[in-house]
């Protein structure tokens, strides 16, 4: 009995000691070294995880595919007119860019990163990526996928890894605008379960279903005009000071394994 009490006391003291070391940050060098050693293992298991995931999900349901196809066709028709206008603007932009060398002065570098872990809680949409402070990453930097679709920001930084909070996370807040407009429109807030909403849109601002919502560029390290999502449904009474809208994110982050971190040229490591 006495021996058991002694062992119990030893365990408690040991745990308390480790807790103090961790809170004070004295364990950080050991943690950093351990991450360096274990990161290849994490990569390996993450790679297998993505492969197993694809085989577990299997082919999508036919009925779901048909409904989704009809929905996308309807969206395509409504966006076709906008596409023509955008192409005209794009051509004009190309000529202006050549004259003022816009892309050279304020271009962005991309740092590719791989997702190695996700939060298992569906309300907490965060992922762990394999790039950290040593790779020039900083807190607040924008993270994109595909052709520059904004999916989240770096919110926590360590030497070799960092945490990206996705736009559907309940703590995520991103200043947003409507494509083609320069002024701030509202705030994209995450609601968990891959859902995001556009909130605090002044009643006087025009907002229609299928409007493309982009980043407003008012945040330090998040450039403007990164596509976020499409407006699904606008909500709010005309007498309310603000209206809200449900958003359909353009990127399905469940199946993404590779992301790009935007590094503004002003913050590029020398």
């Amino acid at each position, binding site marked *: 009995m006495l021996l*058991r009490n002694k062992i*119990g006391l030893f*365990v408690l003291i*040991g*745990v308390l000691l*480790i*807790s103090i070391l*961790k809170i004070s940050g004295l364990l950080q060098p050991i*943690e950093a070294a*351990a*991450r360096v050693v*274990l990161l290849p*293992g*994490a990569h390996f*298991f*993450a790679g*297998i*995880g*993505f492969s*197993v*995931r694809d085989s*577990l*999900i299997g082919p999508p349901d036919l009925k779901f595919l048909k409904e989704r196809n009809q929905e996308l066709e309807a969206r395509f028709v409504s966006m076709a007119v906008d596409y023509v206008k955008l192409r005209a603007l794009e051509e004009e932009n190309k000529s202006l860019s050549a004259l003022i060398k816009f892309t050279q002065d304020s271009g962005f570098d991309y740092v590719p990163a791989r*997702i*190695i*872990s*996700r*939060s*298992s*809680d*569906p*309300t*907490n949409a*965060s*992922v*762990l990526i394999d790039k950290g402070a040593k790779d020039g990453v900083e807190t607040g930097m924008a993270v994109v996928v595909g052709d520059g679709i904004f999916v989240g920001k770096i919110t926590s930084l360590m030497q070799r*890894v960092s*945490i990206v909070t996705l736009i559907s996370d*309940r*703590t995520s807040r991103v200043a947003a605008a409507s494509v083609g407009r320069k002024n701030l429109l509202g705030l994209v807030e995450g609601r968990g379960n891959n859902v995001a909403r556009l909130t605090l849109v002044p009643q006087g601002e025009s907002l229609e279903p299928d409007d493309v919502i982009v980043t407003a560029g008012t945040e330090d390290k998040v450039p403007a005009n990164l596509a976020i999502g499409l407006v699904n449904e606008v909500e709010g009474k005309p007498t309310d000071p603000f209206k809200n809208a449900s958003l359909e994110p353009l990127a399905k982050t*469940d199946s993404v394994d590779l992301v790009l971190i935007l590094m503004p040229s002003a913050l590029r490591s020398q």
Partner: protein
Amino acid sequence: MKKTWIITIIFAILVSLLEATFFTLLPSPWLYIHPVIAFSVLLVVLNKPKEAFVFAALSGFILDLFAVSGGYFSIARLSLIIAFVIFLSQSLFTNRSIYATVSLVAIARVLDRIWITVGEVLKRVLFKSNLLVDPLSSTVIILVWDIAIVAIGFILLVFFTRRMKIKLSKDLNTYGG
């Protein structure tokens, strides 16, 4: 003896990396497999309390390295929970049956849930952070997986190690005759 410790450490690294990376990338319900506590309880039931404690502590350390959702101070959490499970296995659930094993893993998982919930409430109170507690349904699914792992593990251990089989000598006359 040394071989046992090496196997324990390697096993802890593998299982914790699986819990921190591999299983988090799978869809539901596979996403809810958290094997560290289940395997720690199996080690306790195998009468290897020191190995179980080291397994839990090392796994907790590695889980903290790759924690995504703020981390729940896994090294302290798992160490204390498994220390308590070891205490229970030596005082209350002393029989090495599948029922005792399932009871121990259920207690461990409930304590785990309490720790995480209290942690989130404290963060809310002290740092005004958002209260982010997993829904209870996810803890139930995790517990179901825990029970499945320990049950299958226990049955396999009985077959392959023969540790928990009760052998009665033919000479023994239980009726005192």
